[in-house]
């Protein structure tokens, strides 16, 4: 019930009771309520004519960076005794200094300016209209207005740098880069020998081998290094990323995606990104800083979604032909092995970077004996899952998110993969 109506009802009640009992003292009890009502009418808010201007110090920032928001509200109408000016903040942004709402007196033709400082989580945040609620001093008359003003703040993912990610796709592009192309030519790494051809540099002649032959001179051949097509797939399925207590490992997956994309783009590769989450989104492949910016913007918007499995994960052949490199960033679940095996069977070279959900979840559960036992069982299951993947020829980086990403990548990829070890062991036995 409105406060005015309640007051009026009580006044009627008192007056009628007083008149009915012919009791003047009783009628006089209505006086405080009547005066209170009159005070509401006196200098109540008039029609609001306000305009607002919002200035945001930056449009895109890194998480943890402070953003200054400056607001100016101008009153083009009559005086407003008490007006609440509220700048509704998007979710996941919080005020660290100052105030996003003010309760002020705005004189006629006057204005007020103030600033506050924000910080927030990764994402694209849209600012809405500023809410103005004008009231008389006693709060009996209320007038509301939405002051049109817009703003957007993009908080990019955190950046973790990785110097080099050693990938070995079966197919490369024609441009020179740093990925071994399995073809002889100009390069740094020794690839093989071939007969000397006119035009070969004398520095490339392998004198030791040529000396053992009668009429033939051999030249060293080096492995060509080129750029490659790389598709990064970020797994944003809620069931593998989120755990009890609203803890999520997804931010670590995003961080890994940024690091991988930045490193590969810096080496000249053609990189695309597919986010498999709340909305499935492709960032079509491209080169250079512009592509990095596109990927960063798409990663800023990445959110986890309800998909249960990778049923709709289709790698477009037009963008990524078979034999190109796919990097899946996912905590993984038991049912993923078959799909990844299918991708391998289609000819894709697959690298899985898997933030370890077991150690991540165990950290938040304490160290009781039952938790330790459960962790051990979960770790064994994961080990089996990763082993199955390696058996299908997938390179796997098991990343304990408590360690720096670069350290995990370096230690996992700087040595030959498990299946290469197995091949070498097999050759040794023969």
């Amino acid at each position, binding site marked *: 019930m409105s406060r005015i109506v309640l007051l009026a009802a009580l*006044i009627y009640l008192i007056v009628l009771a007083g008149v009915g009992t012919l009791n003047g003292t009783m009628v006089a009890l209505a006086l405080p309520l009547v*005066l209170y009502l009159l005070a509401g*009418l006196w200098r109540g808010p008039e029609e609001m004519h306000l305009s607002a201007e919002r200035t945001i110090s930056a449009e895109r920032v890194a998480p943890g960076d402070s953003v200054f928001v400056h607001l100016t509200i101008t009153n083009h109408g009559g005086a407003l005794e008490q007006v609440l000016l509220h700048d509704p903040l998007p979710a996941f942004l919080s005020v660290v200094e100052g105030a996003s709402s003010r309760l002020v007196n705005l004189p006629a033709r006057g204005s007020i300016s103030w600033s506050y400082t924000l910080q927030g989580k990764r994402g694209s945040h849209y600012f809405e209209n500023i809410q103005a609620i004008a009231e008389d001093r006693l709060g009996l008359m209320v007038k509301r207005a939405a002051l049109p003003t817009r703003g957007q703040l993009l908080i990019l993912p955190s950046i973790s740098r990785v110097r080099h990610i050693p990938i070995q796709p079966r197919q490369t592009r024609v441009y020179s880069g740093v990925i071994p192309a399995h073809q002889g030519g100009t390069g740094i790494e020794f690839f093989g020998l071939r007969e000397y051809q006119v035009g070969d540099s004398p520095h490339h002649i392998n004198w030791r081998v040529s000396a053992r032959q009668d009429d033939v001179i051999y030249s060293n051949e080096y492995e060509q290094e080129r750029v490659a097509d790389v598709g990064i797939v970020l797994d944003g399925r809620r069931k593998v990323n989120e755990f009890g207590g609203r803890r999520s490992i997804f931010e670590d997956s995003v961080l890994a995606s940024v690091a991988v994309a930045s490193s590969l783009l810096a080496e000249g590769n053609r990189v695309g990104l597919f986010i498999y989450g709340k909305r499935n989104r492709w960032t079509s492949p491209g080169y250079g800083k512009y592509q990095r910016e596109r990927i960063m913007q798409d990663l800023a918007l990445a959110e986890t979604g309800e998909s249960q499995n990778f049923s709709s994960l289709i790698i477009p052949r037009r963008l990524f032909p078979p034999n190109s490199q796919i990097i899946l960033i996912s905590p993984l679940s038991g049912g993923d092995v078959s799909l990844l095996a299918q991708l391998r069977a289609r000819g894709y070279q697959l690298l899985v970077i898997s933030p370890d959900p077991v150690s991540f979840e165990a950290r938040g559960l304490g160290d009781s004996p039952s938790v330790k036992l459960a962790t051990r069982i979960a770790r064994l299951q994961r080990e089996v899952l990763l082993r199955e993947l390696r058996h299908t020829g997938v390179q796997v980086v098991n990343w304990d998110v408590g360690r720096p990403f670069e350290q995990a990548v370096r230690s996992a990829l700087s040595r030959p993969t498990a299946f290469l070890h197995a091949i070498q062991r097999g050759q040794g036995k023969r």
Partner: protein
Amino acid sequence: MTRNLVYASILACTAALTYGFAANDFVPISITVALLGIAWIVLFMHGLHRFSSLAFSIFIIISLASLWADVPPLLALAGVIFSLLAWDLTRFFQRLQNTSSPQDARKTERAHFARLALVIGLSLAGYFAATRIHVTLTFGAAALLALLGIWGISALVYRLRSHE
């Protein structure tokens, strides 16, 4: 400050009416009033501010009824004024929570208290003037005056609401 004033107002209106009824040997009613006052305080403490209108209405009706129980009119007036204060300050307290600026809150508090003091001062002055001036009216004249008053209040309410 506003929070403390809400507690003080509820306590004051409860104490005035409890004392008034107890002094006239209406002990069960005075205990009921005391319990209602405690309930109001507990509801406010738990942030259930929407019940303040109900509590305010109940205390106004009790103040009105106290006159039939021969409670001194000044205690009934205290019941009305302090319950009005408690109801108003509860709403004001909610409004203050919408602003995160302490300076604004202090300024607004000062202005609000000044307006309330004006209303209370005028109410007391009006009440004492009304109880001092004795005019003998017939029932018809009193009823006409009451109708006039009701029409005036209705016009006022209509105007206030049409401005919203």
